[in-house]
């Protein structure tokens, strides 16, 4: 259950969130998140038995449309903002994945 939020929790969720935090950041963020979670504990006092969760505030499923193929962003435009790309091959480039 919620309550004891520690630096180890920050390290665990930083891995999940793909954030390389500095030691200084971890030290700052741990009490801040802990404070917020202690404050947010109050929602536990509300009786929600049988209450459905809200995902869309108006309760609608949104608009439907036909699944018609149509042109999307041209590849050269999609690549135009990439930090690194091989434009002639039409690929985004990333650092080595395998050793």
């Amino acid at each position: 259950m919620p309550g004891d939020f520690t630096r180890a929790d920050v390290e665990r969720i930083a891995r999940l969130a793909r954030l390389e935090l500095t030691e200084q950041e971890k030290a700052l963020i741990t009490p801040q998140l802990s404070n917020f979670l202690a404050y947010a504990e109050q929602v536990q006092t509300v009786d929600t038995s049988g209450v459905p969760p809200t995902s869309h505030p108006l309760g609608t499923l949104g608009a439907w449309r036909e699944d018609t193929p149509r042109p999307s962003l041209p590849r050269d435009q999609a690549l135009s903002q990439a930090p690194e790309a091989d434009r002639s091959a039409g690929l985004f480039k990333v650092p080595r994945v395998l050793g």
Partner: protein
Amino acid sequence: MTLDTAAEIRTAVRQGQVSAVEVCEAALARVRATDGALHAFHAVAAEQALASAAALDAERRSDPEAADRPLFGVPVALKDNFCTREIRTTACSKILEHYTPPYDATVVERLRAAGAVIIGKTNCDEFAMGSSTENSAFGVTRNPWALDRTPGGSSGGSAAAVAARMVPLAFGSDTGGSIRQPAALCGVVGLKPTYGRVSRYGLLAFASSLDQIGPIATTVADAALALQVIAGADPRDATCVTTAVDDYAAALTGEIRGMRVGVPWALMRDGVDAEIRTAFERAIDTLREQGATIVEIDLPHSAQAIPVYYLIANAEASSNLARYDGVRYGYRTPDAQTLSEMYDRTRDRGFGAEVKRRILLGTYVLSAGYYDAYYLKAQQVRTLIRRDYETALQSVDLVAMPTSPTPAFTLGERTNDPLQMYLADVFTVAVNLAGLPGISIPCGFTANRLPCSLQLIGRAMDEATVLRAADAFERATTFARERPASVEGETIGR
């Protein structure tokens, strides 16, 4: 004439009293003269603005009817989280510092089609996360009413630009109050439409079940005009509803006799600044004098709105911001050896402190073992908050409360305590959780001349009633016509 209202500018341009280029030049001159002190704009797109104004003038010369478009020649500013083709769009984050979108947001397309001239992109809290614009990676914005204070946030630049009369109309996004609260703190009109009323295609997503785009203006009539242009179905945003768009100008009859307005007095028991309360009570008296019936209503679950909002909004943010990974766009750290290291370091260096805090909190409440206790629970309490409003709005036409519990606060005053900053969102976040339309309009001033604001909340898709009451209030009072002391009317053209 001045740059005060879109309606006035549109008429003058249509009648040929002034050209679109002259209006654009006046707006740009005003930005140059005032924005050094305020920093409402993150980027001014002077060249593109002048080119599109010139194109409008040419169009009008060859076809006078072209000038009948609703925002013909009107200079507008856009919060920097709206994608604008060929104009840099950063969400005021280092991670998007050099990003230039290859496409326009639907709202931007509609504004261009209506004849609006985009002057530039306004400063905001990074990814719209904040209530003071102090979380921008590119410096703070100052409040035109008091330069040592914040304009509110997250759409603080848009509100400050309108308050300082650099543009008559600006646009923002409102996830938990980010249009209404800065409008309140800057003494202008801010409208958050119903969830789904306006397309979010091309808005950099923060919390997808809450985000909504809306206008900031000096008059309710201009806000109505702007909503008319941007509202309506969009096949590119599946959350955008297909309900027909009302005629908002026609709703502004000035007549609110018989309207029922509910006030949740219990929510105002603590924590509301005395001058804000006095201004609010006077505003309620004004509505009563105009023939509205005032009744007390109860919104018992709104006391939980802040924790529920921050649990849900941050969970959704952690998911939406996963896309910033240094691969397809935006910043990439130069010194990573592996893909994994590149992701982690890019995100740590690209995002600011508040954004990281929120991503971490959101990741935590969605993580295995905590989902039910936090996220699911919050979504259930959200249902109760929404039902309170639904019940109240069966017996009243509108709900009234202040927009912000305090006037504009001093720069730096709340930055060291994130929770204290969150608590000031007490009157705005529940409206997003319930998905309802809400407007913030000026309703008074404190002794040291800081704006106070009235918030009116309506039924889903009933912006017409919200606008009608707000417009009637504006006609009965003079607050919306007051300007910050630093602002003099800019004269345009001849």
